């Protein structure tokens, strides 16, 4: 059976005193190693609830829906590259935040990545397809990203083959700067209107 890939990446303006990042961190870090369908839905409801409160803080983003050929590879590629980047980060980082090799010390942003691999033509796939159907002019707006994220709890998780969520940086004291986002491989991110 074919697969469908769905991925959303959103850059949130993170303030120094920011409960959203802390909440996201806690939800992900406290996630269960084994989840039933009910637990899976509850997990994503918590994640999306936090994100929905932050829509006004969405600054940049990217999303993609790929059906059929390439979907599985796409999932693997996103996961391996994000997780693989961890090694790079670890090599770049010193003992404290001040030694992080980033372009600017103005660390205002955090990146949340959500990805799914679902069965093609399944109920979950149809839900995603329906919610991703929109005029091109609306691809990159805060409203669209809010709508896409709020789609997640609506999915039939029985059709979800794999899912993943990442928050970077994982440390609430750290963040990415504008300069970081305009170089170093983040060029694909679109400013959200």
């Amino acid at each position, binding site marked *: 059976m074919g697969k469908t890939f769905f991925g959303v990446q959103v850059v949130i303006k993170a303030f120094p005193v920011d409960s959203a990042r802390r909440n996201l961190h806690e939800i992900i870090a406290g996630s269960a190693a084994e989840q039933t369908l009910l637990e899976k839905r509850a997990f994503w409801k918590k994640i999306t609830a936090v994100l929905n409160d932050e829509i006004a803080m969405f600054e940049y983003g990217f999303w993609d829906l790929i059906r059929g050929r390439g979907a599985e590879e796409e999932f*693997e590629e996103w996961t*391996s590259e994000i997780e693989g980047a961890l090694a790079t980060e670890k090599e770049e980082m010193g003992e404290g935040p001040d030694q992080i090799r980033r372009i600017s010390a103005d660390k205002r942003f955090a990146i949340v990545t959500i990805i799914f691999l679902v069965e093609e033509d399944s109920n979950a796939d149809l839900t995603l397809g329906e919610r991703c159907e929109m005029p091109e002019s609306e691809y990159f707006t805060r409203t669209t990203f809010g709508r896409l994220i709020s789609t997640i709890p609506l999915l039939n998780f029985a059709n979800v083959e794999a899912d993943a969520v990442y928050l970077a940086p*994982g440390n609430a004291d750290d963040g990415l700067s504008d300069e970081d986002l305009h170089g170093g491989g983040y060029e694909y991110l679109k400013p959200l209107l």
Partner: protein
Amino acid sequence: MTYDILPPQHHFSRKAFVNQPALVGARWWQESLQRSEEHDLSRRQALLALAASLGPLAIGGFLAAVLSEPQEIDISMDALDLQRREGWDVGHVHDLLRIDHATLMDADGGMGWRQGVLTLADDLAPAQPALAPFYVRTLLQAPAEPGNASLRSTLTPVDPAPGDADVLRGAAIRSLFEAAQMPRDVALILDLDGAQSVAVAAGMAPAFEPVFVFDNWPHPRGVVRSQQALGAALYYRPLFVRLRAQRPAGAPPVFVLDRNRLARYTDEDTQFDNRYVARLPTAVNLEALGIKHILYVTPAQKDSLELDDLNEDFVAYQQAIDVRTMALTDLEHPPDAPRTVYYYGGQPHTHLWFWHVYGWHGSRVPATGARVSLPDHVSNGAAYRPVSRPTIFSSRVVGGASGIGRQKPSGFGRVSVRASKSTGAITSVRSSRSGSFTRAGGGRGFG
């Protein structure tokens, strides 16, 4: 009621979990949807880059949590990285490297190429420092790599096309430019079969600075048979070396590509995916070099568009640089005349009409009198304009291929290998991504 008719139990198992300053994240798979070993293998491939990129120091706790019982893991690696690590013929050390049109003599009729294999990359480097950053020496350097002794012993020069047609076509391009006092604001890109590109560059080399852009290694089962380009470079090496010293300073560049770099890959066991993408200068680089026009040379009239990996570059170029194409077959010898001189349009009187057709530097060329009509076989490359199109190389096209900061599309130029979990040693190589693993052999540490 029996247990057989109960609905399947759905549960998600966490396969990756990280909670570190740089990243917090988790990844789950639903076990009940994993139906085949193939899926399992594919799932493992999601770990491959992780294993490769984490490196031995970081593999510890995180990878241990991610990888379960088996003693070996399947890893997808960049083909060139794998070859650099394990040797050019990794996984197939007993297979022969097939070289078409092999010869024992180089262009000077000698056997100096036997020593030349060691110096080829330096011998063919651009003389102009300004062009050095754009020279991609990967292929030309391959024979000199310490671990590639068997490649050195296998390699031979490659005979030119009958009658030196490609060199003569290169000479025809050169004569066009010499007639216009060698304008230095035009760069050429030869995107032909590798050996043919090298031969055309040889014909142009008295007046143009060749910049080779060959970015892979040959392999006995390579989908890109780059040994042909390498053999041609060996053949013409004496000529390139001689002309490098004699060429006028500031000669315009000709970028030499192998269009087989994107050769069709069918994921068969007989193929090793050594494809690659061309790395050309950016528009800013070209402007800094004083380039205002690009002539992209394709094999034939039917090849009217640039290859997919160049589309974005060409579209970016046209903001400031005029890009046009020309088919190599636009250069022909006159019918019923000896095949010793080639002309644009196939006739002496059509040759310099090139400048009027393309609208570049026409005033530098002697007037030709009456308007010339070109034969039908001449391409309409002067009318070409780069147009953005979705390709597998497009960066970030919604609904199309995408990735996170990657340069190659998914699976492109990658090879599956099986590695020992305990030592990291590669134990077997799979030529294709779907076929069976070939137990690695030979003397380079394969199990």
